């Protein structure tokens, strides 16, 4: 360790200098913190924090690979009592006879599909660890049509080149925006069965999204419309302070 011999006055001055810097840095820190706490909120959260979330989104969506699959489990490991969390978009009674999936194409044409139309496509099962943004997770079993298969079947290749898909419930009370890479990831399903039976009403009958690379908030129940866009579609929880990406 280095040693020096200096006068007592020099020791005193060096000490004072160090403490002045220390207190000044501390004050700057407190000031910056207070400023951050009282910043104008953008979509429910301080603008700097929102910028942070958006930067993270850029970093981690660049890192995303559809080749990295979500871990799957045998059906025997799936729970029988699946947790229900959130009723947004489900409060309006569903008109089962007249329900149609409204698929808005790039040119503005809308395809109106029945559940039977969707069921004609190959069926895929998945048992995976469904993760809620609150921190809990559950191994659950879902069945439906791969969104990637659906895109191919309905010739949505041009739409799939856009950056985002937007989904909403029939009553438009709940809505999500999802980056296209996650949408066409091979484990993303337009799901109509849970535990081998038609979806219960509170799990999104007749059709819901299952997107294992995202938190539960993105697994929209009771899909009414799907559209495609290069702009970020509105997202219910992202408007309330949450991360827009919410992906794994």
């Amino acid at each position: 360790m280095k040693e020096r011999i200096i006068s007592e006055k020099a020791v005193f001055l060096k000490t004072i200098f160090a403490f002045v810097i220390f207190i000044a840095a501390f004050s700057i820190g407190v000031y910056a913190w207070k400023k951050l706490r009282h910043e104008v909120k953008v979509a429910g959260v301080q603008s700097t924090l929102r910028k942070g979330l958006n930067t993270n989104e850029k970093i981690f969506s660049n890192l995303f690979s559809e080749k990295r699959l979500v871990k799957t489990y045998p059906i025997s490991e799936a729970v029988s009592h699946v947790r229900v969390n959130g009723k947004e978009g489900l409060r309006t009674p569903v008109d089962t006879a007249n329900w149609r999936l409204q698929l808005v194409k790039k040119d503005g044409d809308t395809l109106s599909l029945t559940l039977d139309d969707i069921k004609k496509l190959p069926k895929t099962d998945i048992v995976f660890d469904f993760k809620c943004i609150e921190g809990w997770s559950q191994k659950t079993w879902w069945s439906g049509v791969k969104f990637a298969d659906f895109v191919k079947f309905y010739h949505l290749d041009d739409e799939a080149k856009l950056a985002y898909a937007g989904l909403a419930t029939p009553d438009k009370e709940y809505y999500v925006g999802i980056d296209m890479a996650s949408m066409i990831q091979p484990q993303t399903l337009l799901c109509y069965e849970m535990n081998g039976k038609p979806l219960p009403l509170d799990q999104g009958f007749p059709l819901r999204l299952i997107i294992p690379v995202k938190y539960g908030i993105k697994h929209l129940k009771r899909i009414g419309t799907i559209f495609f866009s290069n702009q970020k579609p509105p997202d219910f929880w992202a408007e309330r302070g949450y991360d827009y990406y919410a992906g794994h």
Partner: protein
Amino acid sequence: MKKIVIKHPLAIRWFHWINFPVLAVMIWSGLMIYWANDVYAIKIGGKALIKFFPKSFYEALNLPFHLAEGMAYHFLFMWLFFVNGLLYVFYTAFSGQWRYLLPNRKSFREGWLVLLHDLHIKKGLPPQTKYNAAQRIAYTAIIIMGFGSIITGLSIYKPVQFGWLATLCGGYEAARLEHFVLTIGYCLFFVVHIMQVILAGWKNFRSMVTGFDVLPLPKAEPKEPEPSEDEPIIEPVIITPVNS
């Protein structure tokens, strides 16, 4: 005149004092996130001995219903925590400061003696340099814990893209528990650290701000010994050849 001995390099003081508030924000925002699914408890025979955390604890810190806010803070300050920690590790490795920090062969035995000394069970301390054996173990452990927080944190944050890390941690849920336990570890470290700083006193604290210890000047070493008066002075005898 005084002698000053450089104890803590400037870089290490900055890393230390930046880490303190950043880690505090990480723990505070982490608690907001944990609140949304607060399932951990220490149980003995099915009975919860310690519940993490009681309702009063959350309310005292205004934690309930701040999940979104907690995540937003956590995922911004994680970068500061990560970069500051990384710079500290690099600095320590390349400056040679690791010599004072890493435990050596003697540290684990001596660390025990330091503990006994600090608990007033035994008197006397083994010789030390900048840090004693217990400090070497503690300050190295806290860096390993920081590394652990990053690994477990990434496993929770991106469990698919960093699936291999999640597997390393024993799965998503295990990673969440480990992340939590590490945080409790920081809090315990903090309590002991603060107690030790208070006990070590003002001069020790001051050196973490100024960087140096002040020592009294050592006694000046005597120069060439001067002849003293009561010693007989021997005149040089010049012997000259005598001519006959």
